[in-house]
């Protein structure tokens, strides 16, 4: 594990992508394949099932460090990372020993082995490691114990490092890393096979992700070179219909089979094909996302739910047809095939996403104005001669979203962030005015600049009214503009309103609290736009 701890420290110490990639290549080159497989698994952002909850770990930490619970809690809030808090508080307890054993042994025995034990034995094992591992290894052990690493390495970076090491196209590595895999030595070795072997049956392709359009669409050239579609607000998905069966994958590469039976059923009528699209709650038109949420929250879908919130798969693209990879073909060709395949699919649960046509950008801009009434987020623009790429690559796919709704709200509570924002007050609760009182309307992580965060953090520390654990209530003095994508009634919120994707647009230092928005004004927005 020591080699991996060193790699982790190296990755953690730099912000330079090239340095990180070189460190990864150096590690993968010499690591035993069994270790390298686990390293890929963890660094690519996979999570192991958490074996011991954070509450339990904090309880054990208080006992092992001899510190009172509240002080462990305060320290954890200050450090912002439980794994790190443990390694810091346990550093002076017990004798440190050099770390031996491979990464695979550590994960498979020291971590996964806990599964078979009763709680008292689990605790004895964990505490023994806390007392003997040197700080960096102890930190890493706790990271593994809590299920995920997060070290500023994207999956793309892992793919690039492996591709460079194996002298293979990155797309091939990306394809081999997608979906579910077992982190074994065989798996790691097979990543570098030169032959295009038969990929696993239900294996998805990497998703192509669009980037926000930050300039005028005229900068993209002629409108005729682009396909425009509505930007739907559902669940992006890949639908695979192959001779072996039907598979449905989320953008986060979670298998979603069983969740949307009507889509799977309709897919059995499809030819052999892999489609990219969006799952939407739909009943003669798209339903508000709040309806979709009702479905997402259920693990098993009953008759009633199927009736009340039916869903469809709206297809955007064809990635594979009759076992041929179509991703390199131009979008125009893929779109023609898609139209042919789904012609007359009007009333089934797999349909085509309609194109939006106008003679020029101005015409599209006018149609885009209808977005909110149509319950879409704006337009998607896709270059007609582009291939289906993988990951977020700028240039061929743009999301041209409508301006978000905004309100001016008052900062009422603050709480420290985690990770890079540990020990900084960056998580805010914002409120609107209701007579002389304030009603919380949204929680938002700071979208302010680092300078503004520092300044507000400084102010928060000096203007705290009360502390509730990590949360501080504040003098109502600062007005922040929050932007959001939608507004819905919600019985679970005190205000009776839930905002979708609230974030801080800017700090209205020019606005006194008396001019912040009122609950009445927000209710007007709900009447206008609430689905």
């Amino acid at each position: 594990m020591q080699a991996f701890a060193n790699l982790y420290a190296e990755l953690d110490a730099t912000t330079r992508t090239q340095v990180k990639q070189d460190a990864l290549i150096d590690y993968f080159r010499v690591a035993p394949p069994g270790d390298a497989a686990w390293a890929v698994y963890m660094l690519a952002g996979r999570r192991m099932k958490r074996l011991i909850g954070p509450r339990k770990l904090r309880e054990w930490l208080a006992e092992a460090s001899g510190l009172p619970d509240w002080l462990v809690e305060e320290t954890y809030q200050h450090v912002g990372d439980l794994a790190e808090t443990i390694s810091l508080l346990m550093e002076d307890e017990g004798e440190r020993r050099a770390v031996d054993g491979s990464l695979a042994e550590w994960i498979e025995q020291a971590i996964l082995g806990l599964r078979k034990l009763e709680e008292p034995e689990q605790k004895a094992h964990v505490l023994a490691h806390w007392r003997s591992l040197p700080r960096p290894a102890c930190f890493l052990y706790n990271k593994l114990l809590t299920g995920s690493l997060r070290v500023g390495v994207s999956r793309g970076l892992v793919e690039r490092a492996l591709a460079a090491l194996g002298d293979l196209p990155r797309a091939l590595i990306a394809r081999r890393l997608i979906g579910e895999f077992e982190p074994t030595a065989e798996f790691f070795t097979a990543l570098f096979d030169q032959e295009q072997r038969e990929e696993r049956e239900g294996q998805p392709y990497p998703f192509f992700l669009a980037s926000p359009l930050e300039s005028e669409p005229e900068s993209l050239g002629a409108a005729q070179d682009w396909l425009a579609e509505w930007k739907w607000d559902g669940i992006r998905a890949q639908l695979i219909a192959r001779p072996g069966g039907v598979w449905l994958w989320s953008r986060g590469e979670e298998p979603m089979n069983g969740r949307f039976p009507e889509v799977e059923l309709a897919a059995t009528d499809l030819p052999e094909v892999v489609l990219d699209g969006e799952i939407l709650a739909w009943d003669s038109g798209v339903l508000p996302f709040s309806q979709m949420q009702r479905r997402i929250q259920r693990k098993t879908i009953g008759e009633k739910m199927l009736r009340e919130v039916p869903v469809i798969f709206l297809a955007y693209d064809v990635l594979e047809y009759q076992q041929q990879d179509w991703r390199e073909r131009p979008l125009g060709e893929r779109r023609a095939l898609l139209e042919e395949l789904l012609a007359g699919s009007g009333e089934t649960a797999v349909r085509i996403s309609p194109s939006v046509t106008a003679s020029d950008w101005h015409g599209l801009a006018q149609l885009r104005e209808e977005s909110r009434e149509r319950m879409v987020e704006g337009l998607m623009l896709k270059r007609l001669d582009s291939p289906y790429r993988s990951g977020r690559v700028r240039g061929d796919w743009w999301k041209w979203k409508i301006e978000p709704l905004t309100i001016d709200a008052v900062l009422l509570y603050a709480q420290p962030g985690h990770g890079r924002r540990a020990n900084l007050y960056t998580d805010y609760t914002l409120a609107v005015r209701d007579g002389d009182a304030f009603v919380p309307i949204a929680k938002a992580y700071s979208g302010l600049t680092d300078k503004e965060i520092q300044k507000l953090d400084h102010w928060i520390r000096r203007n705290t009214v009360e502390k509730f654990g990590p949360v501080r209530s504040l003098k109502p003095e600062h007005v922040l503009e929050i932007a959001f994508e939608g507004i819905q009634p919600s019985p679970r919120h005190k205000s009776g309103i839930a905002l979708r994707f609230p974030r801080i647009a800017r700090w209205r230092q020019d606005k006194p609290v008396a001019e912040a928005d009122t609950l009445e004004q927000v209710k007007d927005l709900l009447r206008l736009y609430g689905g």
Partner: protein
Amino acid sequence: MHDPLVIPTDEGLYCPAGNFHIDPWRPVATAVITHAHADHARSGHQLYYAQHLSVPILRHRLGEHEFIGLAYGEQRRFGPITLSLHSAGHVLGSAQVRVAHDDGRVWVVSGDYKRDADPTCAPFEVVPCDTLITEATFALPCYRWPPVEEVGQQIWDWWSGNPDRPCVLFTYAFGKAQRVLAALTAHTDRTVYLHGAMVALTGLYRDADVAMLPTQAVSELPRSESMNGKLILAPPSAAGSPWMRRYKNASTGFASGWMRIRGNRRRRGYDQGFELSDHADWPALLNTIRDCGASTVLTTHGRSDDLVRYLREHEGIDARALTTLYGGEDD
């Protein structure tokens, strides 16, 4: 019940019986200064008392004022009060202020202090007292400093391991920079290059016979001179400023107690963080409070609330937080 010997006022900590202030932040007649950091030593007072090694630094930072330099342990009378200064181990000339009343009560104002080894200043002296007014900058149990030799070794490994790039180490100009220069004498006799803000202060340390690596101002080097493989010390305010243009491919580091926390390291974007602090860590705070035997502890800047609660609930000490304007975030 006696009146307290030291109270917080709008001007700063004040001793009514002796009619003097300690580290006041507004102009007063008589100011006793614990050390020359900006949040403790401000200009505009009529008369300053400070440890005599602190006086040249105060003069450098505040300009000409009336200064009276005291040796550690030297006593002065202010009415019924006997005042003396005792080493705080924080920076050159740093002092705790002992305030002893003729009725037998003894209060100590710690100022900033540390218990770790530091060849650039006198070691901390334990001063028995009834009431201790202590700093609490790093009063959480996650703060325990590694031995300074270990940190010196890390800085040296970083410097010597980067022969093809300049190494820019950000440290506070007064105290920390000189401590780094002293710690590195164990590894090399190479010259270290200084940002302009550090040149005069480092000279004052040399005047006080503190052994450090040879230094030269960056500004004295010709523009054409390669900075690769050189160590440059600069104050944190120089990070991201036009001054950095000369060190395009530099590896950067920051020496501070805050660097013990990974989130702080990553947020600041330095390549290296070195855990080096001139403040007391958690064990040092507790040990100091126990060593001096105080039955009452008042806390100033930092994690005051946590220290107060801990002392009350687990050490059986009457503890309270004082509100002061000391920064405490700097280290």
